């Protein structure tokens, strides 16, 4: 029998178990806690109330049975929650975190902006089939939503082509796949993962095919969906008119900002006197235009958020999820991010080493937009 570390060296090592993904992952997490290899686990967990869930930091191995590994919902963006745990100080002891690819990317971005740290994190990710909006899982027939969940997956996920973790994951559990299987299959990416795998008795190591090859078909579908999303975002059909129509529904709750893992300013620019219009100005604008919406600045706020976030937006869909009036915020951001990130030649969440895009420049760049 080949050893687990050996298969790791082959590059495509996987662990296989007959158990379900849920049972396999709980088994691994328990093992990690009991053997002291990690101090706690960060994952979505069910709460006492039937059908409710939340992210938790779990230190008691007895509670691992409450973990819902890759339950198809994102209660909050994982990067946002992890940022709370790692901004003022880094983790002192290892923590195993179950994160979706876009949560990893968002966390890498926030860490680059000194709003978190990956130190001591052991990341278990998945090939991600997407999630459904939390509100639908909570408000509608849960069994139906879960059993037909492909129907409920949010727009951002349907159009997500980064659903396989590129870097920073130690292990990847196969969930979305072209090759359905009853087994739980886990790819090992790092030495740490190999060492942990060697201590797991109920898994057998195998040399698998490259991870990306297992999702090539799904990737094509997602790519087509993404192209459609980029071409059809409702906000762009008629330019200003569409923009105004869309945001005429905005109730100014700023939920999109609170939910976004990259909007982390303690005091948002758009809450300060600097950006707020004075009563005098609002009166003058009302006179000049005939009328003016109050509170003012809804679109101004959204343009500002686009300016600040589009270079790093990871298209996670969380802002659309929380919008109480169903404005397709994340579609709008994804479209802007696509143009901005191509122009700046920047891929958010890819590497911790390159500078955040707005803190750097290249001397002879962007000459076609200036004169």
């Amino acid at each position, binding site marked *: 029998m080949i050893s687990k570390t050996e298969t790791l060296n082959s590059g495509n090592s996987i662990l296989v178990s007959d158990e379900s993904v849920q049972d396999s992952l709980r088994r691994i997490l328990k093992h990690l806690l009991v053997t002291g290899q990690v101090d706690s686990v960060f994952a979505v967990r069910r709460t006492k109330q039937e059908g409710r869930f939340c992210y938790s930091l779990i230190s008691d191995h007895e509670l691992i049975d409450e973990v819902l590994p890759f339950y198809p919902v994102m209660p909050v963006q994982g990067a946002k929650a992890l940022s709370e745990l790692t901004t003022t100080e880094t983790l002192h002891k290892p923590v195993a975190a179950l994160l979706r690819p876009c949560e990893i990317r968002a966390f890498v971005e926030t860490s680059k902006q000194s709003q978190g740290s990956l130190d001591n994190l052991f990341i278990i990710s998945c090939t991600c089939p997407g999630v459904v909006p939390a509100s639908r899982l909570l408000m509608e027939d849960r069994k139906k939503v879960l059993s037909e969940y492909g129907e409920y997956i949010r727009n951002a996920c349907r159009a997500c082509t980064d659903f396989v973790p590129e870097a920073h994951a130690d292990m990847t559990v196969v969930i979305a796949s072209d090759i359905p299987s009853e087994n739980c299959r886990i790819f090992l990416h790092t030495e740490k993962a190999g060492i942990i795998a060697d201590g797991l008795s109920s898994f057998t190591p195998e040399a698998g095919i490259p991870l990306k090859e297992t999702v090539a078909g799904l990737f094509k579908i997602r790519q087509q969906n993404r192209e459609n999303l980029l071409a059809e975002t409702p906000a762009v059909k008629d330019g200003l008119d569409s923009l105004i129509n869309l945001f005429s529904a905005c109730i100014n709750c700023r939920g999109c900002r609170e939910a976004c893992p990259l909007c982390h300013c303690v005091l948002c620019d758009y809450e300060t006197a600097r950006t707020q219009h004075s009563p005098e100005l609002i009166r003058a604008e009302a006179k000049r235009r005939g009328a003016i919406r109050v509170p*003012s600045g809804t679109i101004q706020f959204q343009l500002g958020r686009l300016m600040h976030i589009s270079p790093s937006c990871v298209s996670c869909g969380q802002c659309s999820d929380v919008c109480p009036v169903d404005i397709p915020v994340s579609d709008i951001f994804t479209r802007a991010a*696509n143009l901005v990130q191509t122009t700046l030649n920047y891929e958010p969440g890819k590497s911790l080493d390159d500078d955040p895009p707005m803190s750097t420049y290249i001397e002879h760049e962007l000459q076609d*937009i200036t004169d």
Partner: protein
Amino acid sequence: MDDFEPRIIGFLCNWCSYAGADLAGTSRLEMPPNLVPIKVMCSSRVDPEMITDAFLRGADGVLIAGCHPGDCHYDKGNYYARRRFAVLKKVVESLGLEADRLRLSWISASEGPRFRQVVEEFTEKIREIGPNPAGKETLL
């Protein structure tokens, strides 16, 4: 529209473009009166928020003018300004808004004639595009 006179906001860097504008003035170069100059200490002082605010309040065009790359008084300010401008342009473009209403030009203190040329060209461009519809909207 025949009687359309573009209103253009110009954020001019104190160390170069503002001086360039001054030189154009003292050299008595004739140019369109459509640009309202606002002096800033560096092109990087222009928060994109100032531009979107001007745009939503009905400015027909916004010009940012700063020192040529390599000549910024604060060394690198204009390189950062250029990145922010790129983001703004692309965001505006992604929303299907008229990105041509925004311009970033490098004009040094000695380039009075170039200042005139930029103002002339930009005013003409804006005249072609027409009035900014955002100036009449009641819901922004």
